[in-house]
């Protein structure tokens, strides 16, 4: 059953990714991109990484996809103009894909059988975050707070 699910999700994700790369209308491409994110989240669920999958949906659909869509909306100029096929983009994509493939096949961990690990609960992740990774966590918190304050200052009305 897992294999069937894997193939179905893979087909959906790849089709959505292809659509995102080739659809002429920018908004359609952005929405297909969101479907790709859902597919990736489904892979995480399939692997038993529930938390990562949920965060994937949360961050990428709830925030990144909405951000992309808004960016397109606010900067929309010539969405009807067909710019032709972007061969440069294809070259870069193939290069990145090749690089990733090369890196993945070079790792040794592929040949080792996966050790039986207990299912990762949200509680365990929380404990690790608050003990071993507390400094990175605080740094990210600081960064996000700075971003929030920066956004506020950008939109603040100028007092005269």
């Amino acid at each position: 059953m897992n294999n069937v699910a894997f193939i179905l999700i893979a087909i959906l994700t790849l089709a959505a990714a292809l659509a995102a790369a080739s659809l002429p209308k920018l908004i359609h491409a952005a929405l297909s991109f969101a479907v790709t994110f859902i597919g990736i989240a489904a892979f995480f669920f399939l692997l038993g990484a529930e938390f990562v999958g949920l965060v994937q949906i949360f961050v990428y659909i709830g925030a990144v996809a909405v951000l992309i869509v808004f960016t397109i909306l606010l900067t929309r100029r010539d969405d009807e103009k067909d710019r032709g096929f972007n061969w440069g983009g294809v070259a870069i994509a193939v290069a990145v894909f090749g690089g990733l493939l090369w890196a993945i096949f070079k790792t040794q961990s592929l040949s080792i059988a996966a050790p039986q690990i207990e299912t990762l609960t949200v509680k365990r992740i929380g404990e690790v975050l608050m003990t071993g990774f507390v400094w990175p966590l605080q740094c990210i918190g600081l960064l996000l707070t700075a971003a929030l304050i920066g956004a506020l200052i950008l939109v603040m009305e100028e007092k005269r």
Partner: protein
Amino acid sequence: MSGDFLDQIFIRVKQWLLSWLAGAPDWVIQIASSLINILALLGVFLTLFAAISVLERKILGRMQNRYGPNRVGPFGLFQPIADGIKMLIKEDIVPARADKIVHFLAPILIAATAILALGVIPYGRNMTPFAIDGGILFFFAVGSTTELAVFMAGWGSNNKFSMLGAMRAIAQMISYELPLIVTTLPVVMVVSSLSPDAIVAAQDGYAFGFVPRWFVFTPWGAAAFILFFVSGLVESNRTPFDVPEGESEIVAGHMTEYSGFKYATFFMAEYIGMFAISGLGITLFLGGWHAPIRALEVIPSYAWFFAKLSTLLFVYIWIRATLPRTRVDQVMNFAWKFMLPMAFACVIAAAVWHYAGRGVPGWLWSLGVIAVVYFTLSILLDTRKKFARRTYRFAE
């Protein structure tokens, strides 16, 4: 044990249904079990939707000193059937310049996400349709997809009212999602679990033998519940906060270009979203399916859940009948300047409550934290204009 039998009757029915598949392979049983859950959820909540659509109009009518629907069936109770038939046979109009696919997909996506969110709420003892470890996270992850659906509706319609409505809806939803999530944080911290079942289990029992240990009876819980309820009101686009579809300003917001069954789907999604957010509020703060008094525990757990749900829904309708619509900028200011700091205060108050031993001293300390933040905020946000004495001029 007739009480226990009644309490678990739906579980038994499900087991009985599954016993027909005794010899089948595992995955068949798994899928059948999920399907039973899904059908039960849809059956219960679509019936509830039909009931609330007529009850809301009846209650609104009562509060506004008029009759409400009373033509179809006894007391107008068959009104939902008439409405359903009307919606189904209405012409489905799609604007000529609309983006057909996006326009078509938006109501489907919005209804699907609303229904998905219902899946993780515990409706009774052993009655969580899909008990996953990060249930609370699932709820919000699915809920955040709604924004994309609203955007699709607004953009796909190719209408400026739709787009304006969608922009308002998204701005409002993103702003209030923050206090909504932050107010669930104290509960998650105190229970130290993201699973709705664990949260309900933590609210079992009675303090001093008669006060139920629901989180709403702690200062931080009460404050967080009120904030959660208001944010929920905004997330489900109900009146005081229905700016996205303010009829008097922008026709019907992102639903302007929808008619017939697609409009009904939006309408349904809105109500289902309301059920889901109320259900989560009950789970987090109102003790889930626990009875308020020990003597009443003989009444089945799901009956308590739905009693609480009905009460909350009545309050929703009550508020709709009472309050006028807020202005866009007021809604946003309220979110960022009041709701968010108060939500963070709840987190701190919950921590104080925990470290002061969860007893009476903790109760007082957390009340102190909430009170200090509340009064500081109300002084800082005081926008009352200092009026000078009014002078009148009359024609001579």
